[in-house]
């Protein structure tokens, strides 16, 4: 048996690109992605499996990279937030989050998007309840979640632009109504 901490070879496919890496067995996949591969889109939050900020897809399933060891993912295909867009063309979920305000500070967004992608890949037409359940492990301290669920729903329906237009109109109407209520 090799000594504790001695590096080991791990083979991975990350966002379609094959890698053979010499890594410390005690470096989590989160560290490997951010520090070895410089894919800093995957965020470190609690690092204890409680917030979902570090969510990546492992063979299509949402998993938390802060708790994954390189030895557990040897031979696996990973998708990180950097692999979501198709070149300059954003993924429908990304467009929906941007159009519908499904983010504010943006720190939870990579994890949210990947958890949402895992859902839509297996269930293209989820109910709002199913969306909430799929995102139940991803914490957001800014949005209050409603806009995130709206965005995933709009992306699933393929109606991002229409939903965004509705949101803009609703906001404008709200502003008009508020102005009308304001005493002159």
């Amino acid at each position, binding site marked *: 048996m090799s000594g*504790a901490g001695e590096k080991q070879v791990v083979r991975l496919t990350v966002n379609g690109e094959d890698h053979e890496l010499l890594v410390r067995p005690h470096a989590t996949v989160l560290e490997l992605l951010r520090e070895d591969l410089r894919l800093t889109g995957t965020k470190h939050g609690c690092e204890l499996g409680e917030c979902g900020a570090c969510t990546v897809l492992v063979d299509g399933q949402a998993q938390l990279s802060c708790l994954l060891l390189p030895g557990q993912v040897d031979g696996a295909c990973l998708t990180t937030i950097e692999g979501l867009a198709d070149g300059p063309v954003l993924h429908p979920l990304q467009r929906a989050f941007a159009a519908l305000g499904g983010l504010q500070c943006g720190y939870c967004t990579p994890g949210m998007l990947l958890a949402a992608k895992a859902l839509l890949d297996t269930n293209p037409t989820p109910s709002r309840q199913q969306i909430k359940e799929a995102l139940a492990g991803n914490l957001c301290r800014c949005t209050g979640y409603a806009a995130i669920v709206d965005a995933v729903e709009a992306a699933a329906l393929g109606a991002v632009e229409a939903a965004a237009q509705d949101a803009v109109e609703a906001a404008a109407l709200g502003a008009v109504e508020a102005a009308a209520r304001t005493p002159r």
Partner: protein
Amino acid sequence: MLRLPPFSFLRARDVAEAAGLLAEHGDQAMLVAGGTDLVPKMKRGQLTPTLLVGVGHLAELGHVSASDRGVEIGAGVTLARVAADARLGAAYPGYVQAAASVSSPALRNAGTIGGNLCVDTRCNYYDMSFEWRQALGFCMKKDGDVCRVAPASTYCRAIASSDTAPVAIALGATVVLVGPGGQRRELAAADLYQDDGRCYLTKQPGEVVESLRLPPPGGWRSAYVKVRRRHAIDFPLGGAAVALATTGPIIEACRIVLTAVGPRPLDVSAAAEPLVGRPLAEVLGGDVGLLAEVAAAAVKPAKPLDNADLHYVWRKQMTRRAVEQAIRQAARQPAPHGAPAATFGADAAGGAKRG
């Protein structure tokens, strides 16, 4: 960044090799399948192995197979897979409810049923960073010699935190263990646990949980109700598993097992005695007194302490509610198909039963 201390990682070739490595390296070695409980605890210095033996990839731990003896689930099957299995859901609704209630979707994609059976006991004085525990003074669960929540206690009072274990016990399930020489032994799920939060499992250090065997569902309804702050992520702060057997409209037997009220799942089936021989309609139809009486008796032996989230008195009150809800949920389920209750292993786990 919160980093792990150095260790070695070996992917076991098979279960027997994993057991052999555990036996060879003693308390320096631990198994890792999903790692969702182990890795955070290693980051906080609660668990300090220098060798991790990977078993999550082993095909021999990844099966779900049914026979006339019931259903066997490999210990490496993920909680997500159990939660999504319609066949299991129809036969063992309580077990599937419990698997689906563990943590969050991403953790259920990694966490396994074997891992959840063996999940570490939890305590507010233990599930803290190394620095926090060092500042207060360590407890007997790790590095110290006193229980911080009950200083006069001679044993560790960290609480059983498995969601699936109480249902497995209520259903009369058994666990198959593999030793270092490849030898197997099968024991009742209830006998996997003992009343000490530090040494809470009875399995030997060199043994690996290979599978869980659920007896044929014949006639048994089951339900699990979990007490927690949020509907996701949280460990149980209390909880009740109920298995209910009927013949026609009459309740034949009822088992109740509590979780998160002490160091091991607490079988309180004797409290269900008043239900035996009564029509289901009485449970569903509003004999509120009967259900309240059973639930009150069920939580009477539970002695939760102030070592988990939320107040311990509230936890006990809510566990009583969980018992009531779980009985109601089980009673509302459609009558399961299959053999009569007796073939389900009613004698294996005891419990209140007719005649």
